């Protein structure tokens, strides 16, 4: 599985990408390819630009009025600047660091994105909600209380709800931004299981502060430091024989 990395199709092409917030650079000349149906783990200390990098891929950084972007990101060859932002975000879903249910019922949370994209048929909606909740390993726990507020779920359940909500709009890529940072080990394992399962159908980019998590689930790992991409390689190589001594230092816990 890990050996055929180069033969997969390129999903995202990132070329010489930089971004500033005001005068502060957050990413400096990052170039890398993200291939389909694999998990790319992005690791690095705080302020290394890894979350900023993730938010480039669905153009969330543009919400900040002070941001200035240079360079290019392509999705299957098309510059994402030329794709309608709503379409782009439908194709590139995102799961945030904290579980962020919307103040709606469990059902309406999962159905939200689908409804926004114009689906009204109740039967189809119910089907999509069920399929998405099953894919996120949450269906069995919530199938009898879909009408309840999503805030009644536990933290781990809420995060899987957020995954289901992202899956419901049928994206091609899913961006995880430290999805387990607020979760206990058991919930973390469940979310990780879901991620590994998801790469059969989706391309997954996982930003994580947990180096071990990157080692467990990532096919490829990228190491960011100070807004720069230090190196990107197959995960087992990164963790056994990294090419840069800073990567080695970070993985061994010497800084960050």
């Amino acid at each position, binding site marked *: 599985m890990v050996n055929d990395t180069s033969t997969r199709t390129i999903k995202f092409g990132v070329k010489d990408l930089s971004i500033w917030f005001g005068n502060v650079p957050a990413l400096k000349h990052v170039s890398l390819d993200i291939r389909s149906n694999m998990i790319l783990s992005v690791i690095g200390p705080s302020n290394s630009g890894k979350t900023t990098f993730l938010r480039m891929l*669905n153009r*969330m950084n543009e*919400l900040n*009025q002070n941001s200035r972007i240079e360079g290019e990101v392509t999705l299957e060859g098309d510059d994402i600047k030329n794709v309608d932002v*709503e*379409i*782009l*975000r*439908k194709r590139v*879903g*995102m799961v*945030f660091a*904290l579980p*962020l249910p*919307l*103040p709606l019922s469990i059902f309406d949370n999962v159905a*939200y*994105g689908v409804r*926004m*994209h114009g689906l009204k048929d109740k039967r189809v909606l119910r089907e999509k909600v069920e399929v998405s909740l099953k894919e996120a390993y949450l269906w069995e726990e919530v199938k009898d209380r879909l009408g309840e*507020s999503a*805030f009644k779920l536990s933290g781990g359940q809420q995060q899987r709800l*957020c995954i289901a*909500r*992202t899956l419901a*709009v049928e994206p091609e890529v899913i961006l995880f931004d430290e999805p387990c940072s607020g979760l206990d080990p058991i919930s973390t394992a469940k979310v990780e299981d879901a991620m590994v399962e998801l790469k059969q159908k989706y391309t997954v980019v996982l930003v994580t502060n947990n180096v071990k998590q990157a080692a467990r689930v990532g096919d490829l790992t990228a190491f960011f430091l100070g807004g720069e991409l230090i190196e990107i390689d197959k995960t087992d190589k990164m963790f056994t024989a990294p090419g840069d001594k800073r990567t080695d230092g970070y993985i061994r816990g010497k800084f960050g």
Partner: protein
Amino acid sequence: MRNPYRSQKIAYAFLLLSTLLIVVPVGMIVVIIIQKGLPAMNWQFLSDIPRQGMRAGGIFPAIVGTLYLVTGAISFALPIGLLAAIYLSEYSRDNLLTRIIKLAIVNLAGVPSVVYGLFGLALFVIFFGFGASILSGSLTLGIMILPVIITTSREALESVPASFREVSLSLGASKWQTIRHIVLPNALPGILTGTILGLGRAAGETAPILFTVAAFYLPQLPDSIMDQVMALPYHLYVISTQVPNVDEKIRYGTALVLLAMVLFMNLIAIIIRHKFRKRKKW
């Protein structure tokens, strides 16, 4: 050495005292008005026109007039104020100009109401030629409560967590969909609070309607929005200061009706707000 337990007690005493200082006068106003006004309450007082130079009869035209004016002011100010608040909090870029505009709106809420009255007289009554009419009065009251509605609505919109917006946008919802389905429903209780404040102020102010609509004595109901009407606050002013020998119970009865109307409107809004609050659980 200071005794922390004692300073805690002193702080508590001051906090309690301040609260009582607020509650007691309000309570006394309500009690006195009810006590002195209640004897005037009967069906005739509420449904009849004023008679014998406003020393007898009822206040029905003034009640209707105030209802018309408040309804007119709200139906003008709420949509415009809400749309402006949405623009300011969701769309406008954060630069010097928007900050000046926001500051100006906040300050407009503190402009004395008689200034709004003069403004209404100049613009609606004279320049637009609406004359002294329900239309002029409603628009003047509407403009007076616009700053309150805009400011409180803007605060309500901005208090909806940014994370909700990000989640909605990240799912591919458009900005307008996000505002319509996530931001507005969660800001509604706060928007209603602003509307309540506006309603109360529009119902109770005398100066803005003085030059623009209020009739000294008009024992009939208006036929159109171009007619003058009587209004409760102005009527209260008239029978308290301009007409001699008006029975005290009629004056306090009028005040009681005005108070009851404002409280009743607030009650409706509070009930609506409570219903929405129950759904809000973050």
